[in-house]
């Protein structure tokens, strides 16, 4: 971690401790008492239907609905979530993503009751490297009450993060793409690397029985023959498996790095970097096609991208 990041992390934990020390916010009263029209709107939209929801009880998962800020929310300047989020936004963690919501219902609410809500800052954890970027997990706890009686609680966690593009943009001077690990080239593999430089994805084949094999080797695993040649693959296949490499750093590569095991249409499987995909989009069985990453005059690496129709 750089000195700057270290100082930032300390500032974030100081601010978190300050907001946590403020404790629970003043209770904020729901706009309306628990009422049948709002329950009916929920039942219509969610599609729930139980007799008890038209006989005086509200669906428990509506707990938070009663105290939502509405179309023109009044910002409580002491709201811990808002204060912490603003601080993180100013620190460069501009994006937000809900990750967890844990609601506990002590009892069902009844038409005519009016709830209030309080909030505390429960925890701020980070900085963490995540799939979408470096960020902090911010957890708040909300408590709903009818009068003094606690009726429901919620732990709500968001990831407040710096989008990945923002800290490892293409052309990041820290990453020299020509510094990649060089493959071993020998009598068995030279044809493959000559192929990539010529824009051909070559698969070794047995000159005797014709069986295809990859990675290349001296003998045919089917018939044992030593004479070999190659075919040119169509370059299309499906993603058989993949890994997301986060650590340790790899020379010439920006992390996290997506590595795929691609099953080519010809039947052999090949390991290569996946390009044009992120953790959200990558999935097994994804149709892919080969593309070329030219490193320099001596080396071109095959990579795989999502297949375009």
């Amino acid at each position, binding site marked *: 971690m750089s000195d700057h990041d270290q100082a930032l992390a300390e500032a974030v934990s100081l601010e978190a401790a300050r907001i946590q020390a403020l404790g629970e916010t003043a209770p904020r009263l729901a706009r309306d008492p628990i009422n049948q029209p709002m329950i009916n709107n929920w039942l219509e939209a*969610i599609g729930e239907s*139980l007799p008890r929801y038209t006989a005086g009880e509200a669906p428990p*998962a509506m707990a938070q*609905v009663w105290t939502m800020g509405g179309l023109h929310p009044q910002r409580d300047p002491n709201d811990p979530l808002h204060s912490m989020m603003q601080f993180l936004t100013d620190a460069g963690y501009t994006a937000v993503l809900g990750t*967890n919501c844990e*609601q506990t219902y002590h009892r069902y609410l009844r038409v005519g009751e009016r709830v209030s809500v309080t909030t505390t800052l429960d925890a701020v954890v980070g900085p963490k490297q995540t799939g979408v970027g470096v960020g902090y997990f911010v957890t708040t706890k909300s408590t709903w009450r009818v009068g003094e009686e606690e009726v429901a609680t919620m732990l709500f966690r968001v990831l407040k993060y710096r989008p990945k593009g923002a800290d490892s943009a293409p052309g990041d001077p820290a990453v020299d793409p020509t510094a990649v690990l060089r493959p071993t080239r020998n009598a068995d593999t030279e044809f493959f690397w000559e192929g990539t430089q010529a824009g051909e994805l070559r698969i070794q084949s047995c000159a005797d029985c014709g069986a295809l094999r990859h990675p290349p080797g001296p003998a045919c695993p089917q018939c044992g023959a030593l004479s070999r040649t190659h075919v040119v693959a169509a370059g299309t296949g499906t993603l058989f498996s993949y890994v997301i490499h986060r650590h340790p750093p790899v020379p010439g590569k920006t992390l996290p790095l997506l590595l795929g095991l691609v099953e080519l249409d010809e039947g052999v499987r090949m390991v290569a970097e996946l390009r044009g995909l992120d953790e959200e989009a990558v999935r097994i069985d994804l149709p892919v096609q080969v593309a070329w990453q030219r490193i320099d005059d001596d080396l071109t690496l095959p990579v795989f991208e999502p297949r375009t129709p």
Partner: protein
Amino acid sequence: MTSTSTLSLVGQELPAWELPITPTLVVSTAIATRDFQDVHHDRDLAQSYGSQDIFLNILTTTGLVERYLTDYVGEAYDVGSINVRLGAPAYPYDTLVFTGEVSAIDGDEVHVSVVGAVSLGAHVTALVLLRRRR
């Protein structure tokens, strides 16, 4: 449609439930949950933030998990808690497929694990606590 199925065995599976996601579902549930954030009703703005489309809000996800359970057990149980972990966004024109399984039984308390999957992967992974009513 109210059934009153009981949950008596750990490992017992709930019938799968497929819910087509439409813009109307996303918008009507956002408004019914009083969530007026633009990403739940304005596709132009949602896309300007880098999102593919509008998407389901979290209160609705929790509500749909509740419905998945109550559609099956009716009024035989109270819902004691719903813990959801959020994953892939639920966009219109996708289908949300809920599956569930009893993960633990402790007297009158039944824990059900639920997954709501969309084409991108798990939209929600939830643990629901039900209490048998006496």
